[in-house]
């Protein structure tokens, strides 16, 4: 790595030039253990991931559904800590330059010391941080340190987010806007609501930042639809985490299945760029 990791703007430019959307898989650091989850990330990168979302496990993940919570439990049981989380990022940086976003709950940051957390994030090669339980109202300290350490502060918006909040959030956010596809918590779903596609149109009117859609994106068809509606990328979480859960006793099969699904999901982003 000569010039440091790829930035979010560079990544979105890269995929756009190829008329693609960004495929961003999610994994909980240390699920089911540190070594295996590092191999999982390697498969994701080799299969064409354009960026990564890494969750640090938390004991009380209120924004997540049962699939991700179970992954958090597995990771914590295997001995994950905040220090090991950063170590995990450092290892990922040994084999890839693509942008890495952290998905964390605020208490982990608060206990580390907000400045200290952002400093370690920067040192280990993190590009962006999304705090699941930190709305703009409470985000001033986090934003201050994100600017100080050159980390993109990423925010979620949802169908329930009003237009005035959308404008406000677009002004505070960096990197990309995370659009929550469904009402509710994370989890694989079979239908993609019509409302989601309308929401993408609505967000587009309020921001020049790239848009990525997450929560409930589990099929190649979902990816095609959200990219077609104007999203710049898709974040896929629960359906991948389910594979880790299903094959936790057989790592070889787990990695094979992850690879197969990621290849298919990445393929769905091709020719669908905005």
């Amino acid at each position: 790595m000569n010039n440091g990791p790829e930035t979010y703007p560079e990544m979105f430019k890269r995929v756009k030039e190829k008329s693609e959307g960004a495929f961003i898989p999610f994994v909980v650091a240390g699920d089911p253990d540190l070594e295996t989850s590092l191999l999982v990330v390697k498969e994701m990168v080799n299969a064409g991931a354009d960026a990564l979302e890494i969750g640090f496990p938390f004991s009380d993940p209120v924004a997540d559904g049962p699939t991700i919570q179970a992954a958090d439990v597995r990771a914590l049981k295997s001995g994950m800590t905040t220090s090991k989380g950063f170590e995990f990022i450092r290892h990922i940086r040994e084999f890839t330059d693509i942008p890495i976003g952290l998905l964390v709950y605020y208490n982990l940051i608060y206990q580390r010391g907000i400045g200290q957390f952002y400093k370690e994030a920067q040192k280990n090669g993190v590009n962006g941080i999304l705090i699941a339980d930190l709305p703009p109202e409470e985000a001033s300290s986090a934003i201050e340190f994100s600017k100080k350490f050159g980390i993109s502060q990423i925010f979620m918006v949802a169908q329930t987010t009003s237009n005035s909040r959308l404008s406000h959030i677009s002004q505070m956010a960096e990197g990309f806007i995370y659009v929550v596809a469904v009402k509710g918590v994370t989890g694989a779903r079979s239908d993609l609501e019509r409302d989601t596609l309308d929401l993408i149109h609505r967000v587009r009117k309020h921001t020049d930042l790239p848009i990525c859609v997450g929560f409930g994106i589990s099929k190649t068809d979902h990816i095609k639809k959200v990219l077609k509606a104007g999203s710049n990328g898709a974040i896929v979480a629960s359906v991948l985490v389910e594979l880790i859960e299903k094959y936790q006793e057989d790592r070889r099969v787990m990695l094979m299945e992850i690879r197969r699904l990621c290849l298919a999901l990445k393929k769905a982003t091709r020719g669908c760029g905005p």
Partner: protein
Amino acid sequence: MISDGKFGKYGGIFVPELLIPAIEELESAFYQYKDDKNFNKELDYYLREFAGRPTSLYHTQRLSEKLGCKIYLKREDLLHTGAHKINNTLGQGLLAKFMGKERLIAETGAGQHGIATAVIGALFGFPTDVYMGSEDIKRQRLNVFRMELSGARVISVESGSKTLKDSINEALRDWITNVDNTHYLIGSSMGPHPYPTMVKHFQSVIGRESRKQILEKDDKLPDAVIACVGGGSNAIGIFSAFQDDREVELIGAEGGGEGPSGRNGATLSFGTEGVLHGSLSFVLQDDDGQISEAHSVSAGLDYPGVGPEHSLMMVEGRAKYEPVMDNEALRGFKLLSKYEGIIPALESSHAVACAEKYAKKPENKGKTIIINLSGRGDKDMHIVSQKMGAGV
């Protein structure tokens, strides 16, 4: 938002973006109706006719004599459903009705708040879902049955530690998914803004009555007010009327469980600052911020967080918080039962035990104490009989 919901630096709105509109709507409705004449007329009616307010401030004779202090009990144990919880569920239930919500959800640990919510669901005709940890369901079959009799559906929570904090997580997730038609009726003065302020408002009736009653009886304020603190709603309710009277000592009795080195629920005594369930307050956690499992002999104090205003009152020195161990609480339980014929809830027994310790200090001899007797002990018979080896 009308307010940032901060008590000093504590409190706030630490929730996913998806919940913000629901919280804005709730906050706006709360500030609109809390001083609304029709709302309050209806609330007063139900508090009086349905719940049984006002409750008496009872001057104990034999207990006062034994402990050498003048001890009053605020008899919240005499309310319908047997505890102060109904003050809050009536208030929030009525607010949900005024807001045009169609469904109630609640979390419950031992089942007391679940019952108080189920009853309000029956009263106002709301479909009601109560989230309860599967471990708690096993321990509290009778309370599950009571809730179901009132028409509520009890949903078993299998995630995490399968106890109260996980029930709150599940209820929050339900609310995130069904914000349009559902009111989440939080049972204590915790959670994101506006809950701590709103629950205090609906529980402050305890303090208003107590202050008026003690002035009528004694023509002066008490020296100390003592209440148990889990999430902290009965305590903040009674403290609220005395907060500005600096000469009145306010003391919160926490669930000390097995003590500082063992499992406990004494968040203010043994915890550190952190963000849990929507607000910054004190929590029981490890160095990384992973939340610990709480323990107390009383299920109502078995929570690893605490309402944010209590954190502020502690750091400002306005109130003191003391851990009361399981065995001390059991002694308080027996003391009040034996000397006054009043069987307190195990939660309230912590306040009784705390009052006993207070009274035993030589400098406190002859002082006047109000204990908030937040609930009655019928629900705890099987636990206490087990601990006493009576095997009922």
